[in-house]
């Protein structure tokens, strides 16, 4: 079991979600994050005081998938989230020791 983390643009969330579900992903968890990278933030001006906001709002997806589904998941996300512009985001993959479904206690791939 792997944990796929993807950091994408807000307005791509809808597309990515659709792409993943149609690929058979049963569930995912998302959260609001702010990113810093090649994509530069912007400068706001309040009464002459300049504020550089160099953290850009992004959405983080966390998806637990079976090992064999990792590649498919990655490419699906890439296809759906890509614009080609700097700031499209990243995908990270981590190994999972265990997964449990609280409701039933099922573990492993049955849990997701």
């Amino acid at each position, binding site marked *: 079991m792997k944990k796929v983390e993807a950091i994408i643009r807000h307005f791509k969330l809808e597309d990515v979600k659709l792409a993943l579900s149609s690929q058979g992903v049963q569930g995912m968890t998302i959260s609001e994050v702010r990113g810093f990278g090649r994509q530069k933030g912007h400068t706001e*001006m309040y*009464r*002459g*005081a300049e504020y550089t*906001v160099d953290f850009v709002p992004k959405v983080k997806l966390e998806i637990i998938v079976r090992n064999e589904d990792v590649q498919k998941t990655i490419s699906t996300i890439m296809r759906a989230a890509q614009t080609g512009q700097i700031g499209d985001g990243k995908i990270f993959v981590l190994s999972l020791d265990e997964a449990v479904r609280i409701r039933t206690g099922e573990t492993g791939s049955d849990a997701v």
Partner: protein
Amino acid sequence: MIRVGREWAVGCVALVAMLAFSGRLNAYQEESNVLTPTASTTVPVDKGDNAWMLVSSALVLMMTAPGLALFYSGLVRKKNVLGVMMQCLFLMGLMTTIWGLYGYSLSFGGSPKDAEGKPSGDSAWIGNGEYFFMHNVEPKLVQKDGKPELEYPMEGTIPRLTHMLFQGMFFIITPGLICGAFAERMKFSTMVVFSIVWGTVVYCPLCHWVWDNGILAYGSPHAVVAGLNTGALDFAGGTVVHISSGASALICCLVMGKRLGYGHDPMPPHNMTYTLIGATMLWVGWFGFNAGSALNAGGLASTAFTATHFAAAAGTLSWPLMEWITHGKPTVLGACSGAVAGLVCITPASGFVQPMPALLMGAIAGVVCYFSVNKMKPKFGYDDSLDAFGVHGVGGTLGAILTGVFATRQAADAAVSSGAELGLLEGGKLLVPQVFAAGLTWVYAVAVTFVLLKILDATMGLRVSQEDEVQGLDFSQHGEEGYIFI
């Protein structure tokens, strides 16, 4: 805790004592009233005027909160939103109580009752005690040819109670404006004591000087300096409200020093929507502030209302236009600030200028305050958190001066119109006393505020602890959070 303890003890004892006393006093009045012959005239209440003045009083209260509370609180960081709002709300309670107990009397007591209206010498500097505890302000039951009748002490065509209420709302918002200077770092308990003393020692005398035949009042025999014995014009509080608070605000931020991390950490306004809502409420409320200062609902109120509206409008355009020119984008905060700058600047002139000059004054105010806030502040590096000085101090002074330029007998109350020429534009000499009045107000407010702050610093302390400042005033001072959105 002990310190806190000491502090509330003081406040609390004071409150209880004063209330108890007033209770007794009132009982005493009950009898006394019938005995004491009353000097107050008994012209009937003009209900149109009274209706307008009661509405104006409500509008001016609305300026402090929600108006100012929203305008200011939107500009601070989230962790201090309640700190700012609480200062506005608490001042509504505090200053009103003081005003009723003695503030109104110190400001307006004296001159009106004097032998044949000629103001007595003693009232040149401060009001007397005739209105303490609302004595001679509240109605009395008197015997009119046999049958009982209620008599309301009057101020012109309105009950003196209404005049007291209207003026009392100014007494609330003036210290409220100062709060913009020390926002996000001042100790609440110290702010309370500061406001009590400042209101008593700075506001009351100043109010008397300008609006109650004092040393600065137009046409007052007490008007200082031979050459200037005409005194100055201040229709709705350019000197009394804006210069006094703006000048004190400057001293506050100089004496207290900058917020932790000022210049290093970003401190953008946490809720610009509040600031805009607050600014527009100030605009609406200002109609009561300025047009209400006519003290009646006649043509003069309409003139003042128009000048106020036009100046606000022009300021709303000129400030953001400056930004558009210099940075390519007009900002919401710029438009809000411009509106307020225009309103501040027109305040002393509102009852003495025609619509077009009002438009011009508003536009100028927007530009001048834009520079004071965007250029002068960074240059000197003081931390006027919400630009109380930058907008009210600078705008108020500008307004006092421009009044000397644009004031005209074509638009004024009868008394003034029948007098000499006023502004430069109509060949008058008003400019000199205007500058003098502004200067004197500056000197007085600066001096008293400075001394007061030094004393408070040595006794109670002005600032919250670094820890409390980092954590935010909402929790450290009030144990609450502004928003819990999760």
